[in-house]
């Protein structure tokens, strides 16, 4: 192992995952390709969704790939940052909404 977990050049090696398990890897990439095709949602819309999700899951490879992809597909810096804010709002909200459970529990046990 190298002395760090993430290396930008590894993104370009993503396709090599089929070296260790061909069938599953190929099925994944075929499915992945299908997911990002123009369909009920356009490839452009899917790119922005992917950018937001990339930030939600905090995947540096995905952020690299979909920052380029979304910009290439014509989204502005402002639109891209708003997509990141959507991801952040959902993540923040996901924590905060659990506060209701905390409140419920406190109300249950409090005198």
């Amino acid at each position, binding site marked *: 192992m190298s002395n760090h977990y993430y290396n930008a050049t590894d993104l370009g090696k993503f396709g090599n995952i089929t070296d260790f398990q061909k069938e599953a890897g190929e099925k994944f990439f075929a499915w992945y390709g299908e997911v990002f095709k123009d369909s009920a949602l356009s*490839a*452009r819309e899917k790119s922005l969704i992917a950018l937001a999700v990339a930030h939600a899951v905090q995947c540096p490879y995905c952020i690299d790939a979909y920052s380029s992809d979304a910009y*290439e597909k*014509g989204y502005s810096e402002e639109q891209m940052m708003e997509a990141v804010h959507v991801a952040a709002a959902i993540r923040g909200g996901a924590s905060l909404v659990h506060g209701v459970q905390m409140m419920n529990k406190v109300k249950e046990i409090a005198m």
Partner: protein
Amino acid sequence: MKSLKAQGSNLADALTQVDILEHGYGDSFKLVPFQEKLQNVGLLPLRPTNINIFQVNVGKMCNQVCKHCHVDAGPDRKEIMTIETMQQCLDVLAANPQLNVVDLTGGAPEMNPNFRWFVQEIRKLDRHVIVRCNLTIILANKKYHDLPQFYKEHKIEVVSSLPFYTQDRTDRQRGNGVFEDSIKGLQMLNEVGYGIEGTGLTLNLVYNPAGAFLPPSQTALEAEYKQALMERYNIRFNQLFVITNMPISRYLDYLLQTGNYDKYMEKLTNAFNPAAAANVMCRSTLSIGWDGYIYDCDFNQMLEMKVDASSRHISAFDLAALQQRPIVINQHCFGCTAGSGSSCGGAVT
């Protein structure tokens, strides 16, 4: 901003550019030879199909200094086609009816003092004429304000660069104020009927990526352009041509200055598409330089790679010989074969 030539940059030299593309830059990414890629898909030697486009670069003078310009054009460039060379081009067109499309480019072609005469003479020969108009030239000086009317009178197809439908991306690539003047220019073209259904006056726009990335789908982007330009500025146009930035001249300089060269070249080579390679524009086009020399394409012209044929100058034009020639290729050709392909008419697949 000045041209590379005016800056005294070593990249103003075509051989320096070719050397970087062939051998890399410092420890840069080593490109697979383009020749090898063509060999693998059975396209070597690359030969013409049916030559019908006669592209003429009437000079390198331009009112703009765009960051991605493969011509290194600008106000300081004095290379300009003479009326004598234009006459030789007309003689060639008269003798070769197969050359039914004449594509006039620059620089800003309108800055050539004999531009209008040349257009009129070509139209007398009943050829379809394309002018690559940068839009801002229309507003640059009073003497150009009637260009839309002139184009209309002579039924010229106008092809104009608009790197994006927003000001920031356009001005970043083409200079401050370019977007605003481009919009005005487009509105003036619309006013005389360009881009309006039923007029027969064709106005096509060109998209170039404003940065170190490849263009998106032409079809999808055209729909966005049409919607955005109509909603925001009431502008209509016919088609959008999506063109990949060629890693030569000022765009090569930009890639090197910003540390994007390796990644961009890797993207280009990884995106090599055999179908695009089969349809490259150099198979149906000849490119004539301001000084009358003949090239396979405008990019080879800027890299000073003349055709590999006995007929190398307009004064010794021989279409039969040129039809048989092997097309001169080099590493920059990856720019035309990536993804959906790229040509002066946009995507090729």
